[in-house]
C-alpha cells in the first residue's frame, strides 16, 4: 500500500489553477521531495493532503485513508510542520507540546514522558520552560518539528522546513529528517525550493511547476535521464543569445541547447572534449564569450530541462533571531 496516493488532485482558487491534476504514489518509509519555486503549488498540495483544504477535484489517500471521507482519521496518522512555524509565542515550549499531546489523546504521565523525550530529540531541553516568543527562528522550527512528532505519526509532512534558516540550523533539520526516516521508518513528504536539500534528502522527487508535475523519479534517475555533460557558456551580449544557441547547436555531438540567465546551456556527451569546439565556433561567429563551465547534470539542469528556466529561490526577509 502506498503511504500517499493521489489521482488528478486539483485545487482552483477562482480562475487560478493552483494545483492542476497531479498524481502521486509514494512508498512507505521514503523521503519524497516535492521541488518547485514559490507559487508552483507545493503548499496547496500539502494543505489538501493534510485535510486543511478541500480539493476542487481528484482523489487522494494518506496511509490508505481518504482525505475527504476519513479526514479525522488521516489527521491521527500524520504529523505536519507548515512553512510558517505555527506556534503560540505566549506559551512555553512545554505547554505547547503538552497541549498538542493532549489533543492527540496523549495525556498524563505518558504525555509528559513523550514531551520530555521530544525536547531531547530536537535539542531544546534547556529552553523547554521558556516562552516561545523568546526562541530564535531555528529553535521555533525545531519545536514545530517536535510538535508534529508528538503522537508518533507514520507520515510526516514538512513544508519548506528550512526556508529562511541559516546553514547551521538547516543542517540540523536535515539531520533530524534523515534520522526519522532511517531509524523510525517514517514516510516524509518534504516540499522545498532548495535543490541541494532535495538532492541530499529525497529518495524520490517530483518537480512541480504552475500546478503540474513535470518530472519525477529518484534524483539520480532524473539526472541520468539528461545523460550528458552540461557546458554553460555565458554570452556577453544579450542580443546574441539566440544566434549563440544556433551556433552551439551546430557543433558536432551537441544534443541540444537551452538559453537561460544570459547563458547558452549546451548538453553534450563529453563536455571536456566539446568545450573547445563550442567556444571556437562561437568565436568564429563573432560572438563574445564570458565564463565557461562544465558540469555533470545537476537537479538544476533537470529543472531547467523540464521547465525551460532555472529554479528561482525566494528567501524571506531575515527574521529577528533567525539563528539556531
Amino acid at each position, binding site marked *: 500500500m502506498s503511504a500517499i496516493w493521489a489521482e488528478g488532485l486539483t485545487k482552483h482558487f477562482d480562475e487560478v489553477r493552483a494545483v492542476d491534476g497531479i498524481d502521486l504514489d509514494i512508498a512507505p518509509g521514503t523521503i519524497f521531495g516535492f521541488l518547485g519555486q514559490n507559487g508552483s503549488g507545493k503548499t496547496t498540495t500539502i494543505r489538501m493532503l*493534510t*485535510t*486543511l*483544504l*478541500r480539493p476542487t477535484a481528484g482523489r487522494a489517500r494518506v496511509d490508505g485513508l481518504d482525505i475527504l471521507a476519513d479526514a*479525522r*482519521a488521516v*489527521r*491521527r496518522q*500524520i504529523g*505536519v510542520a*507548515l*512553512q*510558517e*512555524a*505555527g*506556534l*503560540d*509565542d*505566549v*506559551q512555553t515550549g512545554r*505547554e505547547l507540546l503538552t*497541549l*498538542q499531546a*493532549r*489533543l*492527540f*489523546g496523549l495525556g498524563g504521565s505518558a504525555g509528559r514522558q513523550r514531551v520530555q523525550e521530544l525536547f531531547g530529540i530536537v535539542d531544546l531541553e534547556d529552553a523547554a520552560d521558556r516562552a516561545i516568543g523568546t526562541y530564535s527562528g531555528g529553535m521555533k522550527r525545531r519545536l514545530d518539528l517536535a*510538535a508534529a512528532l508528538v503522537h508518533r505519526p507514520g507520515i510526516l509532512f514538512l513544508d519548506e522546513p528550512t526556508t529562511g534558516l541559516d546553514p547551521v540550523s538547516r543542517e540540523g533539520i536535515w539531520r533530524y529528517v534523515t534520522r526519522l526516516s532511517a531509524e523510525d521508518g517514517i514516510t516524509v513528504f518534504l516540499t522545498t525550493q532548495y535543490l541541494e536539500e532535495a538532492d541530499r534528502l529525497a529518495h524520490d522527487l517530483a518537480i512541480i511547476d504552475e500546478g503540474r508535475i513535470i518530472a519525477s523519479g529518484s534524483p539520480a534517475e532524473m539526472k541520468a535521464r539528461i545523460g550528458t555533460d552540461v557546458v554553460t557558456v555565458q554570452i556577453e551580449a544579450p542580443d546574441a543569445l539566440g544566434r549563440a544557441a544556433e551556433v552551439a547547436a551546430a557543433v558536432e555531438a551537441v544534443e541540444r541547447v537551452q538559453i537561460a540567465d544570459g547563458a547558452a546551456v549546451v548538453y553534450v556527451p563529453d563536455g571536456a572534449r566539446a568545450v573547445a569546439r563550442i567556444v571556437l565556433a562561437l568565436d568564429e561567429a563573432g560572438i563574445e564569450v564570458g565564463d565557461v563551465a562544465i558540469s555533470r547534470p545537476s537537479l538544476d539542469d533537470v529543472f531547467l530541462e523540464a521547465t525551460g528556466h532555472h529554479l528561482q529561490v525566494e528567501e524571506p526577509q531575515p527574521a529577528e533571531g533567525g539563528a539556531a
Partner: protein
Amino acid sequence: MQSIATVYFLTVRSLREAVRNPAQEAGNVLIPLFFFAVTVGSIGSIAADAFGIDNFTGFQVPVAILAAASSISASAGLGTITDIQRGYFDKLLLTPAPRSAIVFGRIAADGVRTVAITAFIVGVGLIFGTGFDTGVPGLLVLLVGSFGFGMAYSGFNAAIALRTGSPQAAAAGGLLLFPLIFLSTAFAPKDVFADWLEVLATINPITYVLEAQRSLIIEGWNGFDILWGAAATLGFGAASFTLTFLALRWRTS
C-alpha cells in the same frame, strides 16, 4: 467526550494567555468602569426625578457588564486572528480534535473571563452602595447569565475573525454591541423614550438581557424578566454560533 476535553484544554490555554496579558484585561474592565462612573456621575442625581429610578448606580451595573463582555470578545477575536496569522490555528486544525471544539475553547474562555469581570464590577457596585436584592443566589444566576452572554457575544467576534482574518474587522466587531446598547434601556426606562426608540428597544435583545440583570440587582426575583433575558441570550448565542460554524466551514473549505 473528545469535544469536551478539547474545549477544556483550549479554554485553559486562552485563560493562561489572558493571565499573561494583564494590561489587556485591565483595559477590558477599566474602560467600562470609566463609562459607568461618568454616566452615574452625570445623570445619577436626576434619575430619580426624571426616570423614577432610585438606585441608578445599580441600574447601570449591567451596562458596564455588557460593555466589558464586548471588550473581552473583541480582544479574543484579535487572539484568534493572531493564531491564524502565526499558523497556530492551522496546527490546531491538524489535530484530530473536533474543529468546532477548537473554536469553542476560546469562546468558553471568553465566558469565564466575563464571569470574572462581572464579579469584579458587581463588587465595585457594592462598594458604591448598589446593593444586590436577590443575594448570593441572585449573584450566582447573574454569573451564569454573564457566562452565557459572554460566550454568545464572543461567537460574533469568532465568526468575524474566522471569516475575515482581519485585526481591524475584529476590533470593529467588539464595537457592534454599542449601537445595540444605546438602542436599549441602557440609560433610561422605555416609558421615557420617543415612540420610535421605544419600538427599537422593544425588539432589541439587549434590552431583555439588561432587564434580567437589573431585576437581580435592584428589583428582586422576577421570573418573567429572567426568562426573557435567558431567551434573548440563547437567541443571541444561536445566531452567533451559527455564524461561527459557517465561518469555520468557509475557512476550512
